């Protein structure tokens, strides 16, 4: 059994890597991928705590709700990617670029 701290450190690292990517990369597809990494960090947390819960309270038996949440989250992430890519596709068609620095028409 791997202690919970390891999982938490791992997911924090994933989140930080994802956030760094979102903040620095110019390519919108890479930004989208980094968002996925951040989401998966959250999923790992859910699963980790789900397993940790049954270790902490053996009397209650196992509780799968954290894992179920993770499944939902993955499904939603898939939908989000579909929408995100579709947006990027139409942005590219209009501006011939997916550089997030250049797409700044939503401003004052």
């Amino acid at each position, binding site marked *: 059994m791997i202690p919970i701290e390891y999982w938490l450190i791992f997911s924090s690292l994933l989140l930080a890597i994802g*956030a760094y990517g*979102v*903040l*620095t990369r110019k390519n919108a597809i890479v*930004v989208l991928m980094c968002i996925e990494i951040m989401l998966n960090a959250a999923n790992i947390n859910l699963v980790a705590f789900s397993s940790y819960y049954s270790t902490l309270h053996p009397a209650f038996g196992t509780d799968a709700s954290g894992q179920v949440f993770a499944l939902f989250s993955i499904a939603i992430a898939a939908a989000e990617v579909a929408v995100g890519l579709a947006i990027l596709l139409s942005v590219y068609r209009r501006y011939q670029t997916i550089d*997030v*620095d250049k*797409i*700044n*028409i*939503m*401003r*004052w």
Partner: protein
Amino acid sequence: MNWLELAWLIPVAPFAAFLLIALMPKRTLGWEDGCGYAIAGAGTALALSALVIWEVINGNTLTVDSPRFTWLIIGDTTVTFGIWIDQLTALMLLVVSVVGTLVVVYSAGYMHHEGPTRRRYYAEIMLFISVMYGLVLADNYLEMFVFWELVGLCSYLLIGFWYERPTAASAAKRAFIVTRVGDIMFMAGIIILLKYVGNLDFATLFEGGATAHIPSNMLTLSTALIFGGAIGKSAQFPLHEWLPDAMEGPTTVSALIHAATMVKAGVYLVARSYPLLVQSPESLLFVAIIGGVTAIVAASCALAANDIKRVLAYSTISQLGYMILGLGAGGYLVFELHNTSGYTAATFHLMNHAFFKALLFLCAGSVIHAVGTNDMRLMGGLRKKMKITSMTMLIGALAIAGVPPLSGFWSKDEVLAAVWHAGEFDWAFTVLWALGIATAFMTAFYMFRMWFMTFAGEQRSEFHAHESPKTMTVPLMILAGLAIVSGFALFIGDGFKVFMGGAIEGLVPGAHHESVVDVAVEIFTDPLTYVSLVLAVAGIVLAYRMYYMPGFDRSVFARGVPGTVQKALENRWYISKFYDDFAYKVWYGFSLLTDLFDRYVIDGMVNGFAYLAVRWSAIIRKGQSGNVQRYTSLIVVGIIVLLLFMLYVVPWGGW
């Protein structure tokens, strides 16, 4: 079967007629564009009223234990709607039902030439009759106030019936706005009562203990404010100028609303509030003074008016002043002598006046119908052409002038006697009595001035007068009959005084009931009766001398002191002019100031804030760069700051 329990049906009948006339298709209106429905509605109400009045004459009333339904519950306050039938209600029902029905019948002839707008006329007049019954039957102040406003609305609509005339439209507005001043006072008065008693039911308020919760100065204020409602509605000085202007409406409306019923609502209100009023002598004195001043001011204005309807309008105001004066003086008699004679005299005058004044107005309507003008200077010589009208109008004029045995003599004399007796307790009443007796003289004079100018002498302009149709002359004859006999109510059965005294018997425990013979003896042995009689005859003779006999030089009124007085009278003592000047100059100046304040201070503040918002937004909108990564980094920084705050600052502070 107890007819009193069914009294709530009385207003329903005219209301049903109103709905039928106003909402049904045009081709169902039938005779005279709805007059048939109107007569049916008014007639049903008349029949029901007669049954109710019969029950009341037999000694049955329905006051404290009448059926009620709950209308509103606000916190601890419950507002109910119910009916309240005592002798005073019966009296008002009699007036409204008889005059209302006769006026509707008369309208069939008078409004014949109006064409399709008659539908609006009959609908509005039915609505008026319905809400007037509601006002009379109301059993609490709030219910009364609701109907009070509704009669005001109907009055507005009917004065402005010929709304395409600018004078009628502005007269309607004036009537509505001026009476509104009184209505606000009325509302303030009942709010004070609600605050201290917590209930507006007559049943609670008129019971002895209820007013114990009210500090005496607040009771005075509240009763004076309730009387303020009467000042507006009954056109008392200084709010009386709307009534002469209200003559812009059809004459039938003037007869019904502005002579016989709605303007009586103020007198009715004062009479209804008697159990409260008699506990506050200051208010009673105020009531009496307003009444006396109104009586003489309005009578003097009638002396010089040339419009036949305006003469009658001023006369109405003056007679309403009489009633108010009688009620004010009667209150003193109630608490000083346990004597109801002032109250009965005023209500008696209310009834008689409704009949003879409606008669006079309808006669004037008949004359206007024939001649086509309101100006008496253009009439003259109508006696031979309009025999019925001239005779009935003569009866009305004799009745109001106080010539025995017509009705006005009895009631006017009773009112003056009550005021004279109240003079024993406050010298002000003696002065008011003098005003009243002077008014009696003027009344006789201006009434016969009007009659002589209209019917006697030579025709003074081109017109082809003819007697009015039957639908108009029959109501005139019925009203003339009532104007002759209604005064004898004083001597029928136990007599009117005992009957009306029943309405306030709770206030005068153990009062002595005068027998009919006592009343008659009292009237004919009192020297004051002969004083007023002599003055009435003198007034008639003076009018005969000035306006009938040839050779009277009226040019004395063109110059000198009489000229000034004449001019003042023709300008209605400049009261109307004062209001106009006040509105045009003082109030307009004030409005200009407030306009400036509004434009520069209020608008300045609003515009200033808008300007600040614009400038501030111009600065901070630069933050919205459109760069997603900058937004994201701000979110991350924000989360980090929040985390640091929660992890270090919050525990450190010990929250």
